[in-house]
């Protein structure tokens, strides 16, 4: 144990900008909320029109919108695998299920955006409830497989048997009215142009609220007890915790946030900014699988990790997919861009092999090295398998 661990965190007279200040504020909800707000306010602008950054990211407004929705899905997934230790391989059920509920509600009942949100999220929560009754009897790989099976079943149902309702593979594309009957969700011009659209503000508000909700859950007894259940289920039982109910709670919270993500994604993928779209493929297992890759790549068990993972994955898809460059002499294989998933695979393998805590783990290790330069070689030694036999620190919570 190093001497640093023994020192209690005392007030120091160091300047406003110091590691001590950082340690004190970084986990406060105010800081997290502030960061989320600043992130949302600048994100669309940064990837679409900021100097230098927009050249790197080559983003467009719709990409910013869909990334925010994916990030929420990442947080939903992380609540299970990163926080409670349940591997969901069927998060596409919430992603697409809430989308269909929202679309059908918009078509048959009402076109108010907030009511559509309520419909999508409610469906996701009910779906989560029913799924949990079955799933929480299962452990490990069986849990994962059955989540996958449920999502695939919904995919099939939406494709064929329910075609009269879902329009099969064509999907649904309803449009919706202004927010609260007043605020248009379309493009912004003038001083608010950096935000892009009313829809972006709508999604952004849900994004910030969800991040704050998750930060709060992590600071509540739940955050700690979820981790306890993940790390030692038997011990958790033996001290009097009802493990089933806590798992159930985690699953329901995940379904709730997954429903928010799925409904927002439905709302931002329509032909126009005031219309949505949903297709059966949204419940296909590839979405669930990609989600696992994104979150693990970014870093499990944290708030920043899933967000970074989603961003990195989507950015690679966007950036490389459009790349027309061909390898000289190998024109026959076509442009390099179409192999972007190979590049993702390469990046994923490299990152996860060397840093089991993902990109965020890598970042925190390097900032740790800035504070204490001696820590890096040791940590790197531990984490790179061929340099030494380090412990598996896969589930670190930073």
């Amino acid at each position: 144990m190093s001497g640093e661990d023994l020192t209690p965190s005392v007030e120091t007279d160091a300047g406003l900008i110091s590691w001590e200040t950082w340690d004190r504020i970084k986990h406060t909800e105010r800081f997290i909320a502030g960061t989320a707000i600043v992130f949302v306010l600048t994100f669309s602008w940064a990837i679409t029109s900021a100097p230098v950054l927009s050249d790197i990211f080559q983003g467009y407004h719709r990409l910013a919108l869909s990334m925010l929705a994916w990030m929420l899905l990442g947080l939903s997934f992380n609540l299970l695998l990163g926080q409670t230790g349940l591997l969901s391989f069927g998060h596409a059920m919430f992603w697409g299920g809430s989308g269909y509920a929202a679309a059908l509600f918009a078509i048959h009942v009402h076109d108010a955006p907030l009511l559509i949100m309520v419909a999508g999220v409610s469906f996701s929560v009910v779906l989560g409830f029913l799924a949990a009754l079955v799933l929480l009897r299962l452990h490990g790989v069986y849990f994962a497989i059955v989540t996958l099976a449920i999502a695939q079943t919904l995919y099939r149902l939406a494709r064929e048997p329910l075609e009269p309702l879902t329009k099969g593979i064509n999907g649904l594309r309803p449009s919706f009215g202004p927010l609260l009957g007043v605020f248009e969700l379309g493009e912004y011009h003038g001083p608010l142009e950096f935000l892009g659209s009313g829809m972006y503000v709508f999604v952004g508000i849900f994004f910030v609220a969800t991040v704050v909700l998750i930060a709060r859950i992590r600071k509540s007894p739940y955050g700690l007890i979820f981790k306890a259940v993940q790390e030692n289920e038997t011990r958790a039982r033996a001290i009097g915790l009802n493990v089933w109910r806590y798992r159930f709670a985690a699953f329901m919270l995940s379904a709730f946030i997954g429903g928010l993500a799925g409904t927002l994604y439905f709302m931002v993928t329509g032909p126009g900014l005031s219309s949505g779209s949903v297709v059966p493929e949204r419940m296909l297992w590839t979405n669930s699988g990609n989600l696992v890759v994104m979150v693990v790549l970014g870093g499990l068990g944290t708030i920043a990790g899933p967000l970074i993972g989603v961003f990195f994955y989507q950015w690679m898809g966007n950036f490389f997919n459009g790349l027309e460059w061909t390898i000289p002499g190998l024109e026959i294989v076509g442009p390099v861009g179409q192999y972007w998933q190979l590049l993702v695979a390469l990046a994923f393998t490299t990152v996860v092999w060397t840093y089991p805590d993902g990109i965020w783990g890598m970042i925190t290790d390097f900032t740790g090295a800035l504070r204490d330069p001696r820590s890096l070689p040791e940590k790197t030694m531990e984490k790179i398998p061929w340099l030494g036999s380090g412990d598996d620190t896969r589930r670190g919570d930073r």
Partner: protein
Amino acid sequence: MMALLETEGLTKEFGGLRALDSVDMAVEKGELVSLIGPNGSGKSTLINVITGLLSPTDGHIHYRGQDIVGMSAHEIAQLGLSRTFQTASIFPERTVRENLEIAAHATEEGSFSVNFLRRREDFDGVHARTDDVLEVIELEEEQDTTAESLPYGDKRRLEVAISLATGPDMILMDEPTAGMSPGETDMTVELIEGLQEDRGMTIFLVEHDMDVIFGVSDRIFVLNDGELIADGPPDEIREDPVVREAYLGGEVT
């Protein structure tokens, strides 16, 4: 007066194997009793059955007069009947303090609570309880250390501390000194005696270390092949010919 913990015809079979064979025993409030027996005699099974990790094939278990057979492990723990494990069963990636807070929450807030929007720092009862246990177990200086980086002896003490943080009336300890150095063993013995004397706790000890057993116990149960073959104060057990033959051999003279 009724015993605090009482078993009646307690039987546990695994397939054809009878791990516990009609065990009748009673532990009075405030007693420090020990359970000894050769390896495989069913000691751990008995603890697991009493604490609800295994369900008995037959028989009854009464705790404070209430039949607890069929209750789940967390319900039994909520009654104030706690246990420690043979291995250091802790929450490895949490800090020492968090390990205890988890247990304190389980007691202060029940087996499940729904306030996932309330901050942990606002639970004063939990913090008071945690501080108290940290002091008893002398792990205050390590409270911000990650549990898995503690030395082995401290991990075992943390394991006992987790049980204490649930504020039990009775605690079942499964080989608390196994693998400890003599110094650590002395510390643990002192702790166990302190729990009985200062806190009035009822303690049920499963041990291999004969010095510990004969030093601290008010009464000793001897288990052999799942059957309780003797029950009495240490001096009586030491002289009991059946026990000597089944278990002690020439070890104790």
